[in-house]
């Protein structure tokens, strides 16, 4: 697989073309707005959290294939999960992008999200994949800021 092929895998291109849970919950309990000023990626994430479980999640906005696929895959991964699990997933996901390679066990936990591992070879694109996860982190944090900006 060439570097490009490992970045733009079928699954990513598919989620880019047809993002799942694309929209805005109304009403919602949690919200965050994630922007990347330099490349213009701009997403809103809305959540319905009940009893510390994310019962529904949507995202909307615009951005590159990586950020959009990441958002789509994220919603699938978090709906129905307890907040603590989501935080763990987020940490694992960012670890995959930013630091070491994952253990086999960790990759298992990430499931389909691991398809974004190819992004690691494109340092300029890491923040694209991370953006919606930063927004989730923000939305779920006690001190939610309403807008997070990655750079």
């Amino acid at each position, binding site marked *: 697989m*060439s*570097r*490009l092929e490992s*970045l*733009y895998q079928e699954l990513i*291109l598919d989620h880019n*073309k047809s993002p799942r849970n694309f929209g805005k919950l109304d009403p919602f309990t949690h919200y965050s707005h994630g922007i990347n000023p*330099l*490349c*213009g*990626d*701009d997403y809103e994430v809305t959540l319905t959290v009940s009893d510390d479980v994310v019962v529904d999640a949507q995202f909307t906005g*615009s*951005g*590159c*294939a*990586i950020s*959009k696929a990441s958002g789509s895959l994220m919603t699938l991964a978090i709906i129905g999960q307890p907040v603590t699990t989501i935080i763990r997933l987020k940490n694992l996901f960012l670890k995959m992008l930013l630091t070491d390679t994952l253990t086999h066990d960790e990759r298992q936990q990430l499931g389909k999200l691991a398809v974004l591992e190819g992004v690691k070879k*494109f340092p*300029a*694109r890491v923040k*694209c994949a991370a953006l919606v996860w930063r927004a989730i982190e923000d939305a779920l944090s006690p001190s939610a800021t309403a807008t997070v900006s990655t750079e």
Partner: protein
Amino acid sequence: MEQGGVAGIRNQFPVLGRQVNDHPLVYLDSGATTQKPRRVIDRMTQCLTRDYATVHRGVYSMSQESTEACERVRHLVASFVNARSVNEVVFTSGTTESLNLIATILGRGYLKSGDEILITQMEHHANIVPWQEVAKSVGARLKVAPIDSSGDIRLDEFNSLVTDTTKVVAFTHVSNVLGTVNPVEDLVRIAKNVGAIVVVDGAQGIAHRPVDVRKMGCDFYCFSAHKAYGPTGVGVLVGRYDLLTQLPPYKFGGDMIETVTFDGSTYALPPAKFEAGTPPIVEIIGLGEAIQFLIDVGWHALLAHEHQLISYLMNQLSTIPGIQLIGTPREKSAAVSFVMSGVHPHDVGTILDQEGVAVRVGHHCAQPLMGVYNVPATIRASLGVYNNYQDIDRLIEALLTVRKYFS
């Protein structure tokens, strides 16, 4: 293609021999910054290895020679832009500083509450934000002249936006996104009807069109060396001498003063008045060599080369499905922006890079203009004197690769 002034010119740019991601580099980001010819690099190296000394302050020979060398560059710049006098050439750190300088001193010494400042929709952030700030600080209003869909300033609207309360009109010579070459003389004439001060952002103009500030009639013209085959760290503000004399200084420190006491200070005459501190000595020397390079290539060759390549590029782009050009103005210079249906510019940038093709994707520091075209970002290929047909063919091939992934 490679005839006259540009024949063999690629060999003068060592970086062009480089590989990127296992492909020979195709450099199409000259709008951000140009590569440097060997002679500019050599001139700077020579200065650093043989002639380096401070300016202005030394009575010793090397310092005098250094001062004279920098002043010769000032003369060269003055004649290159046809300034009225060498004292109209102020060295700065770049276009951004030149524009901040002029906005700041107009704010301190000229603009008043209720005055209007007119800019255009196609401005770079460097020609927007300083005016927003100065407007805020003096209580002036910032107005924005609209462009039409092809990327030309709407002269009718511009005309009616220029009124007796308009005190400053600031616009770009050439758009860094649309490639639009503005009709500077016409715009100046309109602005001068009401006596407004005219500031031209020449960042994208200086290496692409002959600049004659007297013919243009503008009061200030700003540019950076690094977009004109010269070094980073140095730029120019060309300003009308009487205004430079009347307006207050900008930065304070050594060389811009006449006398300092703890009770107060008096300032030197322009240009020294605006050049506080040790100037970018080696970079000024490099700027001189870059301007001499442009002179040696010659406007005839520069313009013909640019014209041929831009036509070819626009033509070739039109063969790719789903490409929308952003900016099809009457006169277009070296920046070609576009978007591709179904693909975000960022993804295009990454794929092109894998093919060794360097273009810029993003908002190009012109976010408001992105809003006008309702796109989050564009892909921009911008040309320099070293580009050739093959570079464009490589770009087109790489765009076809993009299409393979995003069909």
